[in-house]
Every structure is written in C-alpha cells, then in structure tokens.
C-alpha cells in the first residue's frame, strides 16, 4: 500500500519536476502581444485572412506581415481591440459581403438540358460547361452553400444561390467555391448591384436569359458611377452615387436593389413565430378589405386628413373666437372628424394585418 502510494507519487513527482525543468530549458519566448492579439481575434480559425488559423494571423500581425484589418469576419470590434493592443490608429475598414452576381433562376434563364448528375456545381460544370444556356449563370447546386460556415447562403427552388448580407461575415470562403466564378465581394453598405456576370453580347444574352445585362449602356449615360466593360455594366462602388437611379433605368431589371430583387423571408425576421398569429389576423384583414370597398378611397388621404383635423379644430376655435363664419366651415370641420374615427379603426386593423403577415 505504502509502496504503491510512494512509487506512484514519486513517478508523478519526477514527471512534474521533469516537465517543470523542461519548460525552463525549452522555453520559447513568445511575445505577450501575440497572445493578446490572438485573444482579440475570433478564434474560429476560418482562414479568411489567408493565414493558418487565428494564431497564424496573430503572429503575422505582430511580425508586421498582416494588417490589423485582415480579420474580415471580426469586423469593426476586432479592429478596435487590435488598435488598442498594437497602439495603432484604426483605418476605417469597410465591411465587405459576398454576392452572387446572377439573378436568373430556372424561370429566368434557359437550360441546355436536364442535369441529373451529382448535385455539385463543379461536377455539373464538367458536363458541357454546365446545364444553363448562359455560361455565366448560377448553377444553384450549392457548392457555395457547402462552403459557407455561417449559413448565409440560401438556394432557392429555382436553383439560384442567394447570399444573405446580414448573415455574411465576409470570410470569402464561397468565392473560390463557385466554379462559374460569379461570387464577388462588395461593400456591405452598397445595395445596388449589377446582378449579372455575362460577357456575352446583348442579343446572345437576351436569347438565353430574361434578366441578363444586354449591354445597352443606358445606365452609363444617365449615372456617374456606372461603366461598361466587356458588354457588362459595372458599378463603381468608390463613387458615392448610391441613388436608385440605375435600377429604374435598366430595361432588363439586371441592375437591382438587392433587397428588392430577392424579397426572401430573411428580410422579414421572426416569420415563424408570427406565422401562427397571422392566420386569424389575415382573416380580419380580408374582412376589412371586403368590408370597406367604399372607405378604401378615403384611406389613401388619411394621413393628411389626420394632420389637418387638429388644425381645422384650431381654425374652428379661432373662427369661433373671432367671429362665426358661415356654417360651411363647421360642416367641413365636423365631417373629417367623423370620417377620421371610422378610417382610424379600419387603418388600425389594416396595420395589424400587415404587421402579422410580415
């Protein structure tokens, strides 16, 4: 018994002392900043920076081989932390998100043949350069979806990949995952994009896709931040002309406001929770709609009336104080009040309905 305790604890003691000595003898000086920097990074080892893991980036930052803004998924918070550690001033890093520069699902773009093979864009590209008639089109088989570690990519039923900008961390893993090479990084603040990558000439594009850029150059003539290159319109994101003008100009609808182009469920968060409530509310809304074919017209100018009524009240009082004006004024003032109440209730119902549905 005593032997066992002694020998085992002796063994442990020897191992412990050995390790203690070894840690002194084989001590490797690590810059304490490296640990601090590594602690500030996300620690997900996503590889977006191009270094082997977060520790690799930390070492590179200390060695001056990488910038403190190189951690793309970390965003502003990490950059600020690193600024404090490194004693450097922050250079504003615009957050970038990935975007699929193709708007055409199966409905918009023609296909060459029915592809029944392996569900992978790279595999599909082996068969005659993809099944889409347009060789710059999204195949929608989800190679980027698999590459995304943040669930930021959705594949629609139409076989079109859509990257949700709110979820995208800008790690760029999906960019090389696309065999068609149509995923690009764009500034997150920009919403207007040319959702097409086709370098084909106008007629060729038009033949295979209803929403492709046909190279009509209309947008370049009317706005300052659009240019043409290889039959494709290009947004110059550095020029601050973020008006929605090009969206209205584009005849094919290729240039679009991303959120409007893809009104997916993502832009209406908490849909599932409210979906249950929405059913009864939707009925109310329908009833409201059916019940107020007459009041419908009144609803439209409602806000202006609502603003006017207090004024008209004041006017009424004023007119009462000053002198009694003809009865017409009073009638006018009274009528909106009555109609306002009715409309108010209707509009409230309507608002409820729309809220719940969304």
């Amino acid at each position: 018994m005593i032997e066992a305790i002694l020998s085992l604890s002796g063994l442990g003691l020897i191992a412990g002392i050995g390790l203690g000595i070894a840690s002194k003898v084989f001590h490797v000086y690590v810059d304490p900043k490296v640990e601090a920097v590594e602690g500030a990074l996300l620690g997900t080892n996503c590889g977006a920076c191009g270094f082997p893991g977060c520790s690799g980036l930390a070492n590179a930052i200390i060695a001056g081989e990488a910038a403190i803004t190189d951690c793309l998924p970390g965003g502003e918070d990490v950059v600020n932390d690193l600024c404090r550690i490194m004693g450097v001033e922050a250079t504003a890093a615009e957050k970038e998100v990935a975007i699929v520069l193709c708007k055409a699902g199966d409905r918009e773009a023609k296909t060459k043949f029915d592809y029944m093979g392996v569900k992978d864009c790279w595999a599909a590209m082996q068969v005659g350069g993809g099944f889409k008639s347009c060789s710059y089109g999204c195949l929608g088989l989800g190679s980027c979806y698999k590459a995304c570690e943040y669930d930021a990519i959705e594949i629609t039923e139409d076989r079109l990949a859509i990257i949700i900008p709110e979820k995208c961390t800008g790690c760029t893993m999906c960019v090389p995952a696309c065999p068609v090479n149509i995923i690009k990084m764009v500034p997150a603040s920009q919403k207007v994009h040319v959702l097409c990558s086709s370098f084909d000439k106008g007629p060729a594009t038009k033949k295979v896709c209803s929403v492709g850029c046909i190279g009509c150059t209309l947008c370049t003539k009317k706005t300052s931040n659009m240019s043409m290159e290889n039959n494709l319109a290009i947004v110059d994101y550095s020029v601050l002309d973020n008006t929605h003008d090009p969206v209205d100009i584009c005849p094919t609808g290729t240039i679009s406001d991303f959120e409007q182009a893809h009104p997916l469920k993502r832009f209406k968060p908490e849909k599932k929770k409210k979906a249950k409530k929405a059913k009864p509310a939707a009925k109310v809304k329908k009833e409201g709609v059916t019940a107020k074919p007459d009041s419908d017209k009144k609803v439209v100018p409602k806000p202006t009336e609502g603003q006017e009524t207090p004024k008209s009240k004041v006017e009424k009082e004023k007119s009462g104080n000053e002198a009694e004006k003809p009865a017409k004024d009073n009638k006018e003032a009274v009528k909106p009040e009555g109609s306002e109440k009715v409309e108010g209730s209707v509009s409230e119902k309507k608002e409820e309905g729309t809220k719940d549905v969304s």
Partner: protein
Amino acid sequence: MGDVITQLSLLLVSAVFVNNFVLARFLGVCPFLGVSKKVETAVGMSMATMFVMTLASVSTWVVQKFILVPFQIEYLQTIAFILIIASLVQFVEMVVQKTSPVLYQALGIFLPLITTNCAVLGVAILNIQKDYSFLSTTIHGFGAALGFALALVIFAGLRERTELADVPKSFQGVAITLITSGLLSLAFMGFSGLVK
C-alpha cells in the same frame, strides 16, 4: 539473427494490417472519426500519433519493468501509464516547439489531442500483456501507429469522396461515415490469416 529479423518484420506487418488498431481492434476510433474529414489533417494527426505511440510504447515498457513489477503494483498499470503518456506528450510538445518550430506548426493542435487517445494507452498495455521484449515493443508500437495512420488516411480519402456523392437522405452525415468505416473494417478482415 535472421530469425529475429523475420520475427520482427512479421510483428510489424501483423500490427499494421492484420491486427490493425482501428479496424481490427477498434481502438482510437475517436480520432479515426473525428479527424478524418480531410486527408491533409489526417496526415498531420497520423504523424503526431506515430511519434507519440512509439515513444509511449518504449517509456511505458521501461516503467513497467523497472518500477511497477519490482514494487508489485501492476494493478496501478493504467493510471501510471496515463501519467507517463500525458507528461510524455507535454514534454515532446515542448521539445518540438523549441527545436523544430516547423514541425510544431505542422502538428499543431494534434499533439495535445493525442494525450487522450486510447490507441496510445492500448498499445502500451498490449505490449505488457503479450510480454514483448524491448525491441519487439518498439517495433509493435511503431507498427500499430503505422496501422492507425494507414486507416486514418484511407478513411479520410473515402470521406472526401463521399462528400461529393449523392448520398440518400436517410444515410447522410454520420450514418454513411459509420457504414463506410464498417466496410473498411470488413476489407481489413481480409488480411486475417496473413500472419499468425
């Protein structure tokens, strides 16, 4: 002399193929399933494991012969071996970090992970059970590690391919992984009878 060499080479072959640690003895299945998603990481893990398993075989054999047996405390074998292996891994990590930063970077996180690998403890205990000599222990430890590496790399290659395959929905994920490993184990059973 020639006899010894034949015996040792037979021991090596048997440890690698016939009594493959993962596929025939079912030891070290955790890293086998966990670190086999990419061939690249599988190779890194294999290298680190080979390193540690060989060293652990040798050092535990020494501890068994010169400490546990003389004091008649063989029943503390498991805990003593775990102690040895854990501190050995730590020690190796320190030495590698100091002497070869390149190797340290390559092995990376795998070195500390091996501490809890049951294949390492398994090979140490098996060496004692079979009453191997010092040389046989070394060869057996290295062979077992080689077998582990072989299984891990093959399996990683298989998994990279199943990633691309159109797997039926009910088999996706862990299910197909386990089935694949079962089939691989079945294939390795073909080696039984090669060496007695």
